[in-house]
C-alpha cells in the first residue's frame, strides 16, 4: 500500500479495484481450526474455497440454499428423510480440473479422521451423526444420518460445513510428495491434515505456497502480509456463475475504530464502517460520496444470567425476577437513542427476518414497564426501596414469597461483566443500572476486554462461578447459521449456554426444531423462550454500519450471515 497513504490516491473509485476495511484473515485451510472461526476467515475462505452450499435468507429458496452460488443441487431426500443425495454441479478448480465427489470425499476423510481438531465438531454432531457416507459417482454422493433430522436444520446447520477441497493437489503429507490416495485411510488422513494445517500456520507463504494456488472460489490470493494488507485478484478460471466484476480487492486492517474512521473520512477506502458514536456523520459521509448502510445480522443479543451462581443463581431461577429485570430494559429507547437506531429489540431466540429491523417492539412479551416490574417484586415479597437496597421481606416458596433458597434480607445486587471498548454498551448499562437503581436493584458494572473468557459455564462449586451476568453482545451476542435453532445456546449443557440455563420444556422444543420437519417447531421454541427468559433480551445491534462509495454496486444486500461476496461488487 505504498500509494494508499495520501488522501488523493486512496480509494479506487472508477478503477477496477476496491479497498475494504477488513481485519487480516489468518486461516486459509477450508477446515476451520478452533480459534480461527472469525468472520474475516470465513469470508476470506469463501473467496478462495467455496463451500458446497451457500445460503440466503430472503425466504425465496428451498432450505435457504442459494441456487446460484452453491456448488451442488439441493439434496434429494429418501429413506424417510434419513438419506440425502447430493449432485454436484459442473465446476472446475482454478487449474482446470473438475470438482468431483473425490474432492468432497477428501474433505470428509480429513474431518472424520481429525474431528478433534476441527472447530465445528460437536460430539454427536457432524460427522458423528452420519450413519453412512457413500459416493455414487463423480458427481453424486449420498449421506445417511443416524436419526431423521429436520432437513432444513440439517442442511443449514450441518451441511454448511462441507467444502470441497482439491484432492488432486492436496492429498499428500509433504510439499515434495506426490499426490496419492493417502487420505483414504485414517492415519493417512491425519498426516495429510497435519501437513495442510502446518501450511496454514505459515502465514508468510499464503500467497506463494503452491497448495493454495488451486482454488475453487472467484478470487485468487495475490498478496498476503501477515497482520497487514491482503490483495485478492479475480480468478480468471473461475467456473461459477457469479464471476468477479472487479479485478482486485484490497483488504486493509485497522488498529481501531477511530483509526478506521479517520481514514474513511479522509476518503481513503471504498468500503468501511461507521463506529456507532459517529453515526451523526452520515450526512458528511454522504457529501463525500459514501452510502451509509446498516448491516443487519442473523443474530440475537442477550444478557447471560448465571443460574449456577451459588449466591444469585437462586434469584435468577425465579421467573418473576427475570421478568421484572427484563421489564427494566427499555429496548426500544436504548436502540433508538444509544444505538442511534442501529439496534433493534431482541424479543426471543429466533432473529427477525432480515430487513424487518428486529422483532416488533410490540411483539416482545415483556416490554419496558418499571411500574409493573416493581409490582411484580412487591407481590413476591420484596421490599422495594427506590435508590436504596431492595431486599427480600417474605422468604418462602409460596406464590407471594421470594422463592426457594432466598433468605430474608437477601439484597438484589448484581454485577454485570460487560465489554470494554464499546461506547454504546457502556452507555446502555449506565441506563440499565439507572433503571434498576430506581427499584433498589444495585447493578455493578465491570468491564473487561473479553467477557466470554471470564464468565464460563460452570458448576456452582467452581471458583469461576462467581459471575452474575455477562454481556458480550456489542456486535450481537450470537450469529446463527441459516437455521436459527437453539441447540447450541439454550439446551441443557449446550456449549454456549454459559449461564447453565436448563428447562426440560425448552430442551424438548429445541429438539423438535432439529428433528421434526414441522415448520411451527421453530416458532414454538421461540415463543417459549421469549417468555421464559433463559437470558435477558437486549437490543440487537447491527453487525456494523457500513459505509461504501456510492459508486460501488452490489454491496447490498449485505449478507445477514456476515459473508461478503466481493464478486458481486462493481463500479458504476
Amino acid at each position, binding site marked *: 500500500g505504498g500509494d494508499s497513504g495520501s488522501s488523493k490516491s486512496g480509494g479506487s473509485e472508477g478503477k477496477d479495484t476496491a479497498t475494504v476495511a477488513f481485519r487480516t484473515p489468518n486461516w486459509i485451510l477450508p477446515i476451520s481450526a478452533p480459534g480461527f472461526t472469525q468472520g474475516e476467515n470465513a469470508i476470506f475462505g469463501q473467496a478462495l474455497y467455496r463451500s458446497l452450499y451457500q445460503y440466503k435468507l430472503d425466504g425465496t429458496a428451498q432450505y435457504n440454499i442459494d441456487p446460484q452460488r452453491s456448488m451442488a443441487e439441493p439434496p434429494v431426500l429418501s429413506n424417510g428423510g434419513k438419506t440425502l443425495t447430493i449432485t454436484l454441479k459442473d465446476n472446475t478448480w482454478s487449474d482446470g480440473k473438475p470438482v468431483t465427489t473425490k474432492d468432497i470425499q477428501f474433505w470428509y476423510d480429513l474431518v472424520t479422521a481429525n474431528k478433534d481438531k476441527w472447530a465445528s465438531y460437536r460430539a454427536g454432531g457432524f460427522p458423528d451423526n452420519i450413519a453412512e457416507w457413500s459416493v455414487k459417482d463423480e458427481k453424486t454422493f449420498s449421506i445417511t444420518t443416524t436419526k431423521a433430522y429436520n432437513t432444513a436444520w440439517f442442511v443449514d446447520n450441518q451441511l454448511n460445513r462441507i467444502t470441497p477441497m482439491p484432492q488432486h493437489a492436496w492429498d499428500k503429507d509433504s510439499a515434495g510428495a506426490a499426490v496419492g490416495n493417502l487420505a483414504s485411510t485414517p492415519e493417512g488422513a491425519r498426516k495429510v491434515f497435519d501437513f495442510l494445517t502446518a501450511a496454514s500456520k505459515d502465514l508468510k507463504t499464503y500467497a506463494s505456497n503452491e497448495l493454495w494456488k488451486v482454488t475453487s472460489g472467484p478470487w485468487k490470493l495475490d498478496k498476503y502480509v501477515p497482520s497487514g494488507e491482503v490483495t485478492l485478484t479475480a480468478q480468471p478460471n473461475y467456473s461459477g456463475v457469479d464471476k468477479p466484476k472487479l479485478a482486485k480487492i484490497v483488504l486493509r486492517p485497522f488498529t481501531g475504530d477511530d483509526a478506521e474512521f479517520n481514514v474513511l473520512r479522509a476518503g481513503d477506502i471504498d468500503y468501511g464502517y461507521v463506529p456507532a458514536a459517529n453515526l*451523526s456523520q452520515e450526512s*458528511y459521509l454522504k457529501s463525500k460520496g459514501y452510502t451509509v448502510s446498516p448491516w443487519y445480522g442473523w443474530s440475537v443479543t442477550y444478557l447471560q444470567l448465571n443460574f449456577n451462581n451459588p449466591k444469585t443463581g437462586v434469584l435468577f431461577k425465579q421467573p418473576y425476577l427475570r421478568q421484572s429485570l427484563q421489564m427494566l430494559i427499555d429496548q426500544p429507547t436504548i436502540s433508538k437513542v444509544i444505538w442511534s437506531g442501529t439496534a433493534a429489540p431482541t424479543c426471543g431466540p429466533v432473529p427477525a427476518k432480515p430487513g424487518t429491523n428486529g422483532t416488533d417492539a410490540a411483539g416482545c412479551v415483556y416490554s419496558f414497564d418499571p411500574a409493573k416490574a416493581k409490582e411484580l417484586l412487591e407481590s413476591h415479597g420484596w421490599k422495594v426501596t427506590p435508590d436504596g437496597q431492595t431486599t427480600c421481606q417474605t422468604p418462602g416458596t409460596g406464590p407471594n414469597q421470594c422463592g426457594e433458597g432466598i433468605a430474608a434480607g437477601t439484597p438484589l445486587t448484581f454485577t454485570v461483566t460487560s465489554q470494554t471498548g464499546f461506547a454504546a454498551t457502556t*452507555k446502555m448499562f449506565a*441506563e440499565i443500572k439507572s433503571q434498576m437503581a430506581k427499584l433498589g436493584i444495585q447493578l455493578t458494572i465491570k468491564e473487561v476486554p473479553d467477557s466470554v473468557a471470564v464468565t464460563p459455564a460452570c458448576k456452582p462449586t467452581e471458583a469461576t462461578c462467581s459471575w452474575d451476568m455477562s454481556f458480550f453482545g456489542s456486535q450481537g451476542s450470537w450469529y446463527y447459521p441459516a437455521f436459527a435453532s437453539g441447540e447450541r445456546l439454550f439446551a441443557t449443557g449446550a456449549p454456549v449456554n454459559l449461564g447453565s440455563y436448563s428447562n426440560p420444556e425448552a430442551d424438548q422444543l429445541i429438539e423438535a426444531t432439529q428433528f421434526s420437519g414441522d415448520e411451527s417447531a421453530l416458532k414454538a421454541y421461540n415463543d417459549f423462550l421469549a417468555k421464559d427468559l433463559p437470558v435477558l433480551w437486549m437490543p440487537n445491534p447491527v453487525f456494523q454500519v457500513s459505509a461504501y462509495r456510492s459508486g460501488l454496486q452490489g454491496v447490498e444486500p449485505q449478507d445477514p450471515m456476515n459473508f461478503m461476496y466481493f464478486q458481486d461488487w462493481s463500479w458504476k
Partner: protein
Amino acid sequence: MTTLSEAVRPGAVPDQPADASEAPVRGLWRQGVVVFCENRLALVGLGLFVLLAGVCFLGPLFYHTDQVHTDLQAVHLAPGEKGHPLGTDGVGYDQLGRLMLGGQTSIIVGLAAGILATAVGTLWGAVAGFVGGWVDSAMMRVVDAMMSIPSLFLFMLLAAIVTPSVPMLIVIIGAFAWLGPARLVRGEALTLRSREYVQAMRGMGGTGSRAVRRHIVPNAIGTVIVNATFQVADAILYVAYLSFLGLGVPPPAANWGGMLSDGLADTYSGHWWLLYPPGIAIILIVLAFNFIGDGLRDAFEVRLRRR
C-alpha cells in the same frame, strides 16, 4: 509514559546567595513559601489547582445535578438547552455536573496514586540506599526489571486482572509508579549517607536508624515532595491513558480521562462539549501540578543554599 519527574534532577536551580550575615530569622517553611511565591508559574499552577479542585469538590454543593439516573429523553443536549449550561451527554447526564464528578475521581486518584507511589518508592529507595550492599543490588534490580517493562503495559495487564474502580486504579497506578521515586530516593539516600552531618552524628555514637530518621528522611523529603507532585500529574495522565484503552472506571462513575476518551468517539458528531471540556480540564490539572512541582523544587532547593 515518559515522566517528567525523572527528567529533572534536583539541584539544577541557579544559586542565589542569600545574604547570611544579616538575614532575618525566618523559618524554612516561611522562606520556602516566599520562594515558591516568587515563581509565577507555580502560583498560576496553585491557583489553577485550587480553582479546579474547588469547582469539582464544592461545585456540586451549589450546582445540583442527577449523576445517578440517566435520562434518555435528554441526550446530547447542546450547551444552554433546558438548563444544562454545558449540555448533556449520551445518556442524559448533565455534562457540567459530570465534569465535577469526573474531576473528583481524577483528582482523588491522581493524589492518592501519587502519594502511594511516593510512599512505597521512598521506603524502598531509602532502605536500598541506606542498607547498601547486596540488599541494595537486589532491590534495585527489581526496580530495573520493572522499569524496563513499559509502564503502560504493566498498567494494562493489571487493569485486566482487577476491575478498575477508584481504589483499584489507585493501587494499580501506585503499584508501578513507585519505581521512579524509588530510584530517586535511593540515589538521594546514597549521597545523604555520606554527608558530613551524618558522619558527624555517627561520630557522636548515633545509630543507623537515627541517621535515617533524623537526617536522611528530612533531607530527602524535599526531593520526595517535589517528585510526588509530578507523580500526581503523571497519575492523572495514566488514568486518562487507561481510559483510552478502555480500562477506566465503569459508569456511572466518571473521570476526566474516561470522559475525554468517550468524547473522542464524538469527535465528528458535533458534540464538542463532550470532548473539549474534559480535555482542557485534564490539561489544566496536569499543567497545574507540574507548575506546582517546579515551584516546590525551587522552594526546597534554595533553602539548602548558602552564599
